[in-house]
């Protein structure tokens, strides 16, 4: 979107708007009614030594990966190892300057968000939120994994730290890009990602959201896929007081493929809302969505998965499945698939299951010598393990598995 008048219009329109409320179907379960009163926490340089990542996180050594540590919106050069210029990949701070037509067209900043961004993403644009610009040049296949470790320390509630990342893959470029996201304190991390995927490019995008249990998060990841590109997103949502993730993927060229996978683990008092919008706009594209929620005592999971198939998008093959496992009577899961299909020659399937562990399965396992708790753990482990297998980075996968097992122990202690 290079059209400035439109941009200005949008932002102007926003000023008059109020945050979405429960009457808005998409925000029925998750609202931020006082958002307009939130204070903005500017990017700040933390005290010396504060930025050292805790060692139990899956942060690879700089020999294995390019690592960028961003603390409270500021890159920590002494902890980071950026791609060398010869790698064909560049990572730099996204200029927090005013949007202008030339810059926009160059960086693609705002290009997707103005069209498909929700209220909060548009707000982040309006604020000129700082972030990173990641570019992978044409035909470059990244030789290393790129990992961004975000640490947001926002102690005060009703304060927000916005960020805006733009990721651009040139034609036939390929990258594995992971984010480990930590949020400390009762404030809000608000992030907007705009991802442009050129012809035939491939991006494996993994996000580990490890928000503290009072932290708030609003995130929107917006992806535009050109012809024959492949986008795979893996979300590991292991906590947060109130979290709203929105993933909006538009397939704008034929033979594009999208995989969206998510494992959501709300614990006591946590509310984790994940929404996807899969936009099939051209023929012969495919998508596969698999989400699972393991909901603990007093936890809430929300899932809303929309699949939109444009009249032009013949031969679309779209699949979506959501399963939730409730660990207690107080666990809540609201899952809703939504299919809007305007083409006739398509293959779209979806399914959703929700429930507690099956008493018959537990009895069978006990009758073979396992205790009730062992049986439960084994069934829950199987439920999460199956999904985690599709996390493509081994270090992250094994870290998540261990994290899950610890989590299951904790959740089961509360349950029995």
């Amino acid at each position, binding site marked *: 979107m290079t059209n400035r008048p439109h941009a200005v219009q949008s932002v102007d329109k926003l000023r008059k708007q109020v945050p979405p409320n429960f009457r808005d179907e998409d925000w029925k379960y998750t609202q931020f009614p006082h958002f307009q009163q939130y204070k903005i926490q500017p990017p700040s340089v933390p005290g010396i030594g504060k930025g050292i990542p805790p060692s139990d996180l899956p942060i690879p050594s700089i020999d294995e990966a390019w690592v960028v540590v961003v603390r409270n919106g500021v890159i920590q050069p002494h902890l980071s190892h950026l791609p060398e210029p010869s790698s064909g990949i560049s990572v730099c701070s996204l200029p927090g300057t005013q949007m202008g037509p030339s810059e926009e067209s160059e960086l693609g900043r705002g290009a997707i968000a103005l069209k498909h961004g929700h209220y909060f993403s548009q707000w982040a644009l309006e604020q000129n939120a700082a972030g990173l610009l990641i570019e992978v040049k044409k035909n470059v296949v990244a030789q290393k994994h790129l990992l961004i470790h975000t640490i947001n320390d926002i102690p005060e509630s009703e304060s927000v730290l916005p960020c805006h990342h733009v990721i651009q893959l040139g034609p036939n470029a390929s990258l594995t890009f992971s984010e480990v996201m930590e949020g400390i304190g009762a404030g809000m991390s608000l992030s907007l990602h705009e991802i442009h995927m050129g012809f035939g490019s491939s991006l494996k995008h993994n996000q580990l959201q490890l928000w503290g249990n009072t932290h708030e998060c609003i995130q929107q990841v917006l992806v535009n896929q050109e012809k024959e590109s492949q986008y795979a997103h893996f979300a590991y949502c292991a906590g947060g007081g109130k979290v709203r993730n929105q993933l909006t993927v538009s397939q704008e060229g034929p033979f594009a493929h999208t995989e969206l996978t998510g494992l959501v683990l709300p614990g006591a008092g946590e509310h984790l809302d994940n929404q996807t919008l899969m936009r099939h706009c051209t023929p012969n594209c495919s998508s596969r969505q698999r989400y699972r929620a393991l909901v603990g005592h007093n936890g809430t999971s929300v899932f809303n998965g929309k699949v939109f198939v444009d009249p032009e998008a013949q031969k679309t093959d779209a699949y979506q499945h959501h399963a939730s496992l409730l660990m207690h009577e107080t666990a809540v899961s609201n899952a809703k698939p939504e299919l809007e299909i305007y083409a006739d020659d398509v293959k779209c399937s979806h399914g959703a299951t929700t429930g507690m562990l099956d008493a018959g399965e537990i009895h069978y*396992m006990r009758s073979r010598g396992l205790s009730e708790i062992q049986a439960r753990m084994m*069934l829950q482990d199987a439920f999460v393990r199956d999904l985690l297998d599709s996390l493509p980075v081994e270090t992250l996968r094994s870290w998540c598995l261990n994290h899950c097992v610890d989590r299951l122990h904790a959740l089961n202690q509360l349950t029995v």
Partner: protein
Amino acid sequence: MLLEIENLRASVEGKEILKGINLRIPAGEVHAIMGPNGSGKSTLSSVIAGKDGYEISGSIRLDGEEIMDWAPEIRSRAGIFLAFQYPVELPGVGLSSFLRACVNESRKHRGEPELDASAFLALMREKATLVELSQELIRRPVNQGFSGGEKKRNEIFQMAMLDPKMAILDETDSGLDIDALRIVAEGVNKLRHAERSMLVITHYQRLLEYIIPDRVHVLMDGAIVMNGDRNLALTLEEKGYDWIRAEQEVSS
């Protein structure tokens, strides 16, 4: 006496299903239970294995110890094994990791050291051959997508792995094809020994041609109404259950 059941009663939601069962199985013997549909055979096996949801009274002793208050897993570790009439699928739970946990729990219970990965694998190979369970099935989640017959075979495989004292086979023959019946029955026969007893529930005499029982009991309407040797099974095959009903009416 390995298993002694005395005046066992069980009811569900006020409906009495087992109405005072008495049964004694000495170590090393194979007993068969036959009886019409709905007579309570599976209920009896579930109650012995410790399934909850029943109101029960009476006594079940294993090796002289009262087990009525024991949890199902304790009964299992103490040597009771039930091959289910309808084996349960465990989504995503790999058969070998499941069995490894089960086997090690029994071993811990007996004060034996846990099996390490390679010893366990060797044991699995050995026991899988016994019932000709394919390696492909072993790699799958427990019973998931197994055919009816494969599930039954898998029950006997698990029995072989767990090496129980008292094995109850609830209609293990139903759902097996002719060859599978022979293979599974031969597997069961290989597992017979002086310290292991078995209770075989079946509708068909054919299974008892392979697994020759020491005693045959007839369960009707929640009570054991007749006991005999293997010839009783032949008589039932020939005459059905009506003559027993008639005889009972005469005697009462």
